[in-house]
């Protein structure tokens, strides 16, 4: 199979599964025994399981008897269902595996699957018996044929009965269709795009299949509130009853003090127009999380400082905004 970059794929397969629960694996940090390349490490929890060139692949020189991948959640989750997808390559198949469900460093449960995964990449449901609270899931490939790897791991939590999906963009199709750029830079420039910026420190740097902004765009309102650039999901109106917004933020520190780093990153919502909206942002440089409400162009803060935070540089965080 190819070891290249993922080609654009449709999102239909993932959309179907949201109705059956919420795939918490999308917000996990993967660790592996080895990886054919850095980017491969992140491809078993990216929501793509229908592309032949996408998935985690252990390094061919890996001497680990049983290659493994571990997904670490940002906090303890109640998981009731796990699915695994084999690499879509006839010559490569996982024939036996073990799943370790872990919480706070302790093994909670271990499942051994001796039946080979479907060789065409069809997800295999792994019954857990009952919902289980974990903060890590480790998949150990005990016996494989050909290249060792997995196309996708999904781990589902339950949603409320009336909780349906309003919209999603995993940016796996390689573009940002439906998003519209806004420039409020007082100085500097910006560029937005999917997969345009390498992150991490060599030799572990890679370019994620994510929606990214680069540049040194910055500015302040007359009231001294930081403004910059934002990308508006103009095609999707949010229900007036509220939303449960989940996304992953990732900020990279190049380590060069001359660069514009560690500034604000966040989400705007309730967006009526440029002068009327809400914003929640995180700034490593200023060490804050703030919620702002902009009315008539002015930006008073609703919560000036909730908590000081260390720099988010080089790290990721999952941000959930729930409102009703």
């Amino acid at each position, binding site marked *: 199979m190819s070891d290249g970059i993922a080609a654009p794929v449709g999102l239909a397969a993932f959309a179907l599964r949201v109705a059956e629960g919420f795939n918490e694996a999308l917000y996990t940090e993967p660790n592996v025994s080895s990886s054919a390349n850095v980017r491969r490490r992140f491809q078993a929890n990216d929501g793509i399981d229908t592309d032949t060139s996408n998935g985690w692949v252990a390094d061919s020189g890996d001497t680990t008897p049983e290659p493994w991948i571990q997904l670490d959640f940002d906090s303890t989750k109640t998981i009731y269902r796990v699915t695994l997808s084999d690499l879509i390559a006839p010559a490569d198949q996982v024939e036996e595996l073990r799943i370790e469900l872990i919480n706070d460093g302790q093994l909670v449960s271990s499942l051994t699957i001796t039946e080979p995964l479907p060789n065409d990449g069809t997800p295999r449901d792994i019954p857990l018996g009952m919902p289980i609270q974990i903060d890590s899931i480790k998949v150990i490939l005990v016996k494989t044929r050909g290249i060792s790897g997995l196309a996708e791991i999904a781990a589902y939590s339950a949603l409320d009965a009336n909780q349906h999906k309003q919209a999603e963009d995993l940016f796996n199709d390689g573009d940002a269709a439906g998003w519209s750029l806004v420039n409020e830079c007082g100085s500097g420039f910006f560029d937005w795009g999917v997969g345009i910026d390498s992150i991490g420190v060599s030799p572990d740097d890679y370019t994620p299949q994510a929606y990214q902004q680069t*540049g040194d765009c910055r500015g302040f309102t007359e009231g001294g509130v930081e403004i910059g650039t934002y990308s*508006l999901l103009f095609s999707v109106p949010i229900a007036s009853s509220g939303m449960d917004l989940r996304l992953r933020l990732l900020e990279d520190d190049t380590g060069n003090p001359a660069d514009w780093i560690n500034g604000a990153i966040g989400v705007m919502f309730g967006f009526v127009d440029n002068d009327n909206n809400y914003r929640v942002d995180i700034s490593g440089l200023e060490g804050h999380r703030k*919620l702002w409400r902009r009315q008539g162009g002015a930006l008073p803060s609703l919560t000036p400082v909730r908590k000081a935070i260390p720099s988010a540089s080089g790290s990721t965080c999952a941000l959930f905004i729930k409102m009703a």
Partner: protein
Amino acid sequence: MDGEKIMAVEDDTFNGERIALFCARNESCSFDNVIILDPPSKPIVGVNIVDEDLNIADSTGHKAGEYFVSGGGTLDVSGVVTNDTDIGGIEFVVDEGSAGEMSETAIAAPYSAQFNFSPAGNHDVRAWLLDGALQRLPDAEAADELPLVDVNGIHLVGLRDDITAGLRDDNPGDDISLDGRNTGGGYQSVLNDLLTAGNLKPVTVLDEGNSGETSFGGAARIEQVLARTPAAQGYLVFYGVNDAIAGVTKDAFKTNMQQIITAVRDAGKAIFLAKAPPDLIDSVRDARIEEYNAAIVELVNNQANGFVGYAPPDFHAYFSDPLNGPDPSSVNDLMAADNLHPNGEGYRSMARLWCLELKGQLGIRIDMACP
């Protein structure tokens, strides 16, 4: 965020509309896996400390969080719940499980409570959602906690430009204060540690530094800064480098600083000025900075401005003296390579100089050590 509840606020003007992804002063923002679901029907509770002198029911009110420091001994606590249809109320508990535990239950919106304390100290504030029988609901979302709320402490705000924002700080080792309240580069975290150790009181030094700002910018935004920092007792203010670059005259600089002083005094708060550090790459601009610093002395000596027993820290003299800093042969050893912004050691020096001059102000101990 990362499984931690970070803030909750009530506001009745939200009406759906659109979402956007935001980035500023940040050359590497990445967003992934944006999923928008309907809101969960299970109630979620959040707890806030409402800053002084604000109406608790006012949706524009300022609400602070778990690392909050109050200068007074009263905490006004508010609870926010996403769906209170089947809720019997919110139980607020301070220092649960300790000998000094206090609790109040609010059974109807707006959910609020008030607690009073006498000595300075750290407190844990929790909110529990109650069912119709006033029993605590078991769900994780039915509880919230502010683990480090402090009363009778010292609450300061730094106002200036990118030096206050901590630009070019090359020492990440002191970027988080020992109490975890203040983070980011610059002098604030270090000053927090010095004041906390010297007074045995909780301290916070917040950052209101905006890159590139001149005294004009500070004067223009001071009213809004005051409005969004109602719990602050004092403001640490200095301008100079950007004014010099912009060619601001001494008179204009002095007028702007006077406007800031007047606004802060009118708000009933304390203000502490400092002499700006030098511009080591341009002697003309540096000469302007010395003029501004002379204006600072004039403003501090003006009795109408209310500076009592206070001398502004002289960053200019300190940073211009080669004997200060690790290399006695150089005046550049406290500055970053751009010779405009302090480096990590420079920021530590600024914190110590602030500490020395804040003695005796705002109840800060006169015999405090500022090592």
